[in-house]
């Protein structure tokens, strides 16, 4: 068994998807898709509706099992790894339709995630040993810091269901960050959000990127993609049709065809 040393294939590839195919009955949602994400990159995944973006995301995060192909995360083959193990290994994601623990407060949403990435067991937690108390305090502090960063501090003790949609989107990003992931997958972070909030989210993502976080995000809003992404991967009807800088993609004919054509 390979010990969990963080091996890197090639030069700092955090994510490597190799010939991934996913079929649902008769429909091929992903057809031999290969792509990768390097450390500290900010990559966008775009494509018209039905191109397979969500499917790809779901395969990477573990909610779907691919029909064939491989997914490597920090060098480790995670293709069939259970979802929670991938997250514990440093792969975080958010969801297009915001998923939170509605009847828990913002703080609780963050803490319940944070504490599962710290290594201590049930017995320690139950007996409230000094070590555990220190860890719990750390989790609480981290949660507070994140809420501050996202401007959500006044809502710390509010139930998640009582937050506005934009606030929930931010909280979701917070939940993704609290585990100090090596790769953050964002599923349409600006969908259904007002322009002011879009600007805010863009700013946060840039800040995080500058701090060294590797991000892969799915987006529909072209302005966000062009402004944020260092590299853009384009899917259409289950295959990858382009992979380059935003400038290159804008001039790419097959991309234009995919979006405007039939």
């Amino acid at each position, binding site marked *: 068994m390979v010990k969990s040393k963080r091996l890197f294939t090639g030069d700092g590839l955090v994510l490597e998807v190799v010939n991934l195919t996913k079929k649902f009955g008769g429909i091929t949602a992903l057809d031999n898709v290969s792509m990768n994400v390097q450390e500290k990159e900010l990559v966008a995944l775009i494509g018209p509706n039905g191109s397979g973006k969500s499917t790809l995301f779901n395969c990477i*995060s*573990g*909610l779907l099992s691919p029909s064939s192909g491989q997914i490597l995360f920090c060098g480790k083959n995670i293709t069939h790894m*259970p*979802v*929670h193990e991938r*997250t*514990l290994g440093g792969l975080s*994601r958010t*969801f297009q339709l915001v*998923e*939170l*623990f*509605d*009847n*828990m407060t913002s*703080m*609780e949403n963050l*803490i*319940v*995630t944070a*504490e*599962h*990435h710290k290594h*201590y067991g*049930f017995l320690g*937690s*139950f007996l409230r040993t000094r070590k555990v108390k220190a860890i719990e305090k750390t989790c609480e502090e981290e949660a507070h810091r994140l809420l501050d960063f996202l401007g959500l501090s006044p809502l710390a*003790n*509010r*139930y998640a269901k*009582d937050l506005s949609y934009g606030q929930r989107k931010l909280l979701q990003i917070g*939940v993704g960050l609290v*585990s100090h992931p090596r790769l953050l997958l964002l599923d349409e972070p600006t969908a259904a959000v007002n322009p002011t909030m879009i600007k805010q989210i863009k700013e946060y993502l840039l800040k995080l990127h500058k701090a060294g976080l590797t991000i892969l995000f799915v987006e529909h809003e072209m302005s966000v993609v062009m402004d944020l992404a260092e590299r853009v991967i384009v899917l259409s009807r289950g295959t990858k049709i382009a992979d380059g800088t935003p400038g290159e993609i804008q001039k790419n004919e097959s991309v234009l065809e995919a979006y405007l054509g039939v």
Partner: protein
Amino acid sequence: MNRIHSLGHRSIWLIIIVLSFLLPLALQLGYIQHIMIMAMVYIILTLSLNLIAGNTGYVSFAHPAFYAIGAYTSGILLKTSAIPFLGILLFSGILPMAISIALGYLFFSRVRGFAFAMTTLAFNAIAGLILSSVLPNIVKGVEFQGVYAIPRATISIPPLFTFTLTSNIHYYYFLLCITLPFIGLMSRLMSTKVGRALTAIRENELLAEALGINTLNNKVLAFAIGAFFAGIAGGFLAPYITFVSPDLASAYYWVLFFTMLFAGGPGTLIGPIIGATVFSVLPELLRFAPGVSFTPELRQALFGLSLLLIIILIPDGIGGKIKEIIYRRRARA
């Protein structure tokens, strides 16, 4: 996190504890003491069911089976062996717990939600059948109707003392010494990492899984702890009533447990306690209501109706409503 340790709250608990110690001395009637003892038994049963069904959101029909298995274990061992009672009591909890762990790993990994509820239902039915039809053929002293003439419990810590529990008061204080720490344990449990994980699983299981929580292990843990204490409750029952029957695993009991839990307030600490107390004490009081013949049928219809009304009108039960009021008051502050 939900650490309601404000001074006011703590002193309420203190008052309750002191009162519960003094109560049986004030009310010397054996019958009333019996009601209070059974209320405590049901508190243990409901709070332990709450762990898996309320906090984690996985309804389980298997609780009566664990209760019955604990009762039978205790009854049989008291009759046929010389093992000290405290050891028997412990074992009455361990046996159902072991079974629940096996069941848990087998089925939590395969099914969810209501399909899981069905497997617990199947298990409960099969367990009941085994207790009533198979066990009497294997173990001496077990009849088809149950286990009779169970001797009273004797607590002995040689050479310090040996004490046989004979009267209701004895059993009351013995059970109190189990129930109070048990409530404390359940409360503590919910403010640990595991407790929060269970709540997360109930709120959004797939999200919990996606965030790194090992839902399988946590669910099995909740199930196992619940089964352990259900077994202990049964283990206590055997020498107290001196008779146990396969009825303990029957549908009547999960109807009762569900009413106590879901009307009382699943997922809270105070809810199951209220539910257990109300639905074990009230039927006894109604027995004396003038003009109403309080038959088992009427009891069932009333339980059903009250549970239905509460679930529709006050979805989170009485305990949930209390929690909501506290939350609202805090949010305003």
